[in-house]
């Protein structure tokens, strides 16, 4: 397939794909077409769009997000568990998520780009910073919500502090902790969209570089980002149910109620 470069140049075509639509066409048809068929970039120099590029970008998007959430969990979970276990610094543990919400993600990323430079590491740090507050707060609250009777009973059985934390408080706080992880993951996947500002290729690339991808690319990428975020939320919702100990499943309502009827039915049958 495709002409050798010389012939292609002679035929007047650049890259091996059809030309894109005329600039300025803002409609969903073009956006969907961008996802499924590659076409020439605005300058006509390279091919953009199509399943190949979308999948590459999506994989990079998810890998970066996954690393960031993992780093966030690695930091926030132990701190939250410990603070919850000793029951101190409540103000810090609960207000950190308010502070996190007040800092616009674009401003945070811009701050990193301007002062520390571009690159994957900085993007992961920004996204991890975004993931920490909800996980920390939820872990703290989850541990504090554990009935004091259960902790007393465990202590009466001769369990040490660490055993109580691991065998009583952690399992009982799991649903709330996972709700925090879910909130964090959704925020991270959503924010990874602006990672191209720091030269990291994600599904945000067509959105940030319209000079090359045109409005159709922006809209197409926006559709894929929205779908991936909703899927992340739905999958972690299922995981949240799975990690909740059966004993408290019926009693404790899930902290974040997101019901997608189709997925919920699936969840109940499995």
């Amino acid at each position, binding site marked *: 397939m495709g002409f050798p470069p010389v012939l292609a140049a002679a035929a007047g075509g650049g890259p091996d794909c059809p030309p894109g639509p005329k600039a300025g066409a803002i409609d969903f048809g073009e956006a969907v077409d961008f996802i499924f068929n590659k076409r020439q970039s605005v300058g006509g120099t390279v091919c953009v769009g199509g399943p190949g590029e979308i999948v590459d970008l999506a994989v990079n998007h998810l890998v970066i997000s996954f690393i960031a959430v993992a780093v966030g969990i690695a930091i926030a979970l132990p701190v939250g568990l410990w603070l919850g276990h000793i029951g101190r610094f409540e103000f810090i543990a609960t207000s950190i998520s308010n502070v996190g919400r007040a*800092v616009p993600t674009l401003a945070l990323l811009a701050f990193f780009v301007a002062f520390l430079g571009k690159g994957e590491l900085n993007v992961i740090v920004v996204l991890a910073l975004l993931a920490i507050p909800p996980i920390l707060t939820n872990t703290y609250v989850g541990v504090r919500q554990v009935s004091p009777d259960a902790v007393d009973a465990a202590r009466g059985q001769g369990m040490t502090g660490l055993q109580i934390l691991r065998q009583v408080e952690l399992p009982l706080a799991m649903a709330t902790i996972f709700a925090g992880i879910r909130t964090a993951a959704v925020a991270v996947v959503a924010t990874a969209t602006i990672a191209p500002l720091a030269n990291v290729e994600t599904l945000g690339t067509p959105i940030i570089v319209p000079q090359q991808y045109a409005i159709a690319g922006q809209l197409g990428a926006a559709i894929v980002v929205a779908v991936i975020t909703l899927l992340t939320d739905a999958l972690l919702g299922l995981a949240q149910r799975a990690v909740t100990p059966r004993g408290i499943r019926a009693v404790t309502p899930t902290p974040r*109620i997101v019901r997608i009827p189709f997925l919920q039915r699936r969840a109940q049958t499995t």
Partner: protein
Amino acid sequence: MTPALGVLPAVLAQVEIRKRTGQGCVQENGFCPDWIANNLDKYVSPLLEHIYLTFVSVAIGFVIAFALAILAHRHRWTTGPIIAITAAAFTIPSIAAFLLLLPITGFGSTTAIIALVVYTLLILFRNLITGLRNVPAETVDAARGMGLTDRQILWQVELPLAVPEILAGIRIAVTTTVGLATLAFFAGAGGLGEQIYSENAGTGGIEFKSNVVVAGGLAVLLAAVSDLIFLSLQRLLTGWQRASAP
């Protein structure tokens, strides 16, 4: 080594001149108080746009969430569907929402406001309904015993008692909206985000330290100040809460 040493005096002289004119700081991408002082006016209208987007969106969102909350208060079964729908909408990344509304509503602040209003609904609705449900049943019974109608109970008993939760919801909605509105420029609505991001905004874009500090700082400051205003309002309106038995 030697050629570099040769040009050193010239380079030093240039650095000296730049320092005196204040240009060097900008060219070397330092943090430049002089530049900030001279260019502060560039941030005034984006800040006003940002304030406009935030408060119009929260105001419209509040009216809609209020109507939904009253509906859900009267007909309890509607609570689940309302939360499910607003939560699903809340999950969609704001940048995607701003873009996906473009084919329907076009570039401009209307598009941005529609998306921002949708984002406030979940927060405001959840707090409104929590506030209304937390009113003690005895209080409502007492009001009914005094002969108040349902409407009177809602406006004179339930809503006043729900004010703390309602204002807490407004505070969260405002700070969240300030953050989300930094991406509203993708819908062509301007705001502080455009100053942070765009090379064309006359502020040097995302890599220029002074610009990022001012534009980003203003966004954080706006969130903090609005939060403080509503916190004061909350304390002002709920003095009865603190005046409880000693």
